[in-house]
């Protein structure tokens, strides 16, 4: 059991800055995120896109913003638990017991949800029967490429993941690459390689096709693919891979007894507390009259939620407001020399 003053769910910009604010006022915190890297949407959706509305930063990319925030919390030793999705939040006395999908447990008086629009999950095939084969002979990510050796693999998608795996697996497997249009959005060099391999007969390319059905018992046996003119082809295949990027799902947050409206959590604007005492929501996931889904709003919300956490984490102490420019205690926490 990890004990902490506050647990932050989500390592996007808002979660990172909220951690900074908590540490600044002398509270401990840990961060949990479902992704395998820090940065949330900034890193997953738009690492290279310039952002123009971060105060005092005329222009920066999602990746630069994330790196700067990571630098800003460097003085504090904050534990960030990646690849962990929070599944359960339950009250036990004055504490919240938080459990992740990998059975990590936390005990804390304060939970701050900075979850954006929820957790990132792979986008799945629209064909419903695919569920039956999921993680057996149909995958949305690859853990062990050896299982495909000598087999027929049908890969769907037009981005880098689909193309890279088509090239890689074509060395030891029979590869079908199926995509809904002629253009691929992957790197041009990889597209060229795929076209080369297709010419040599090492990759069977089916463009303008999408999956229409899937057949098999325990294992996939074949799939039907269909184009816009309703022409269908049947492909025998041992494995199916789908690479359609990630989607945000609210996921388990919906089950924690919070007031949720249109995938957002209702909060007050003093503490950014939800209808549950000690659970706060900040950033894109929170909702209140006048809410703006801007990174700068998330920073403000996190700063206030952090102050609210103080009361529950240190019930016998009084929070005293201090400036970073003048407070000796804060400078000590930051590890900078006072003047």
């Amino acid at each position: 059991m990890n004990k902490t003053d506050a647990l932050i769910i989500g390592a996007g910009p808002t979660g990172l800055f909220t951690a900074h604010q908590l540490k600044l006022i002398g509270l401990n915190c840990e961060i949990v995120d479902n992704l395998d890297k820090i940065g949330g949407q900034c890193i997953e959706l738009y690492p290279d896109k310039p952002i123009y509305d971060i105060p005092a930063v005329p222009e920066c990319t999602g990746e630069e913003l994330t790196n700067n925030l990571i630098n800003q919390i460097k003085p504090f030793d904050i534990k960030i638990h990646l690849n962990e999705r929070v599944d359960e939040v339950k009250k036990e006395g004055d504490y919240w017991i938080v459990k992740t999908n990998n059975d990590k447990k936390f005990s804390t008086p304060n939970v701050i949800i900075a979850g954006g629009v929820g957790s990132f999950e792979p986008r799945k095939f629209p064909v419903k029967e695919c569920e039956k084969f999921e993680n057996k002979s149909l995958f949305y990510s690859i853990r062990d490429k050896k299982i495909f050796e000598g087999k027929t693999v049908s890969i769907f998608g037009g981005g880098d993941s689909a193309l890279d795996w088509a090239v890689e697996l074509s060395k030891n497997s029979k590869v079908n690459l199926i995509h809904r249009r002629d253009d691929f959005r992957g790197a041009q060099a990889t597209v060229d390689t795929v076209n080369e391999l297709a010419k040599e007969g090492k990759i069977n390319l089916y463009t303008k096709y999408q999956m229409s059905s899937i057949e098999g018992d325990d294992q996939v046996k074949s799939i039907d693919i269909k184009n816009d003119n309703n022409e269908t082809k049947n492909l025998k295949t041992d494995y199916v891979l789908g690479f359609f990027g990630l989607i945000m799902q609210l996921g388990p947050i919906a089950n924690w007894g919070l007031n949720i409206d249109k995938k957002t959590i209702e909060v007050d604007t003093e503490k950014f507390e939800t209808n549950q005492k000690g659970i706060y929501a900040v950033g894109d996931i929170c909702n209140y009259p006048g809410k703006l889904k801007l990174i700068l709003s998330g920073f403000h919300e996190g700063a206030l939620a952090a102050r609210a956490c103080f009361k529950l984490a240190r019930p016998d102490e009084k929070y005293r407001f201090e400036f970073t420019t003048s407070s000796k205690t804060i400078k000590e926490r930051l590890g900078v020399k006072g003047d």
Partner: protein
Amino acid sequence: MFSHTCPIFLHNYIILMAKITFITHENKNHTVDVQNGLSVMEGAVQNDVPGIDADCGGGMACATCHVYVKDEWFDKLPAKEDGEEDMLDMAFEPKKNSRLSCQIIVSDDLDGLEVSIPSKQS
């Protein structure tokens, strides 16, 4: 002062709207007035039309405001920008007449536009 009463100036006070019809997967019609200049996605969200998630808020980064445009309207829409087709690769059941509704800006020309909402956004 004159402008308040003179009908010639009245148009200054009228917000130009277009009627947009959303047809849900259950075949229910929602016809809403959307202000010119807003996106079709914003029109749906502001009027509580179900089935348009718009997770990224119009950043062309999520493909959860995916719609099928009625054939007779499809060619009248301004062409897709770079990136929209890439995002449509990730949409749920994309078709020939698929568009991201955040990329369709409402104008007088689009008065009467009809779009269908897919069974799911993800």
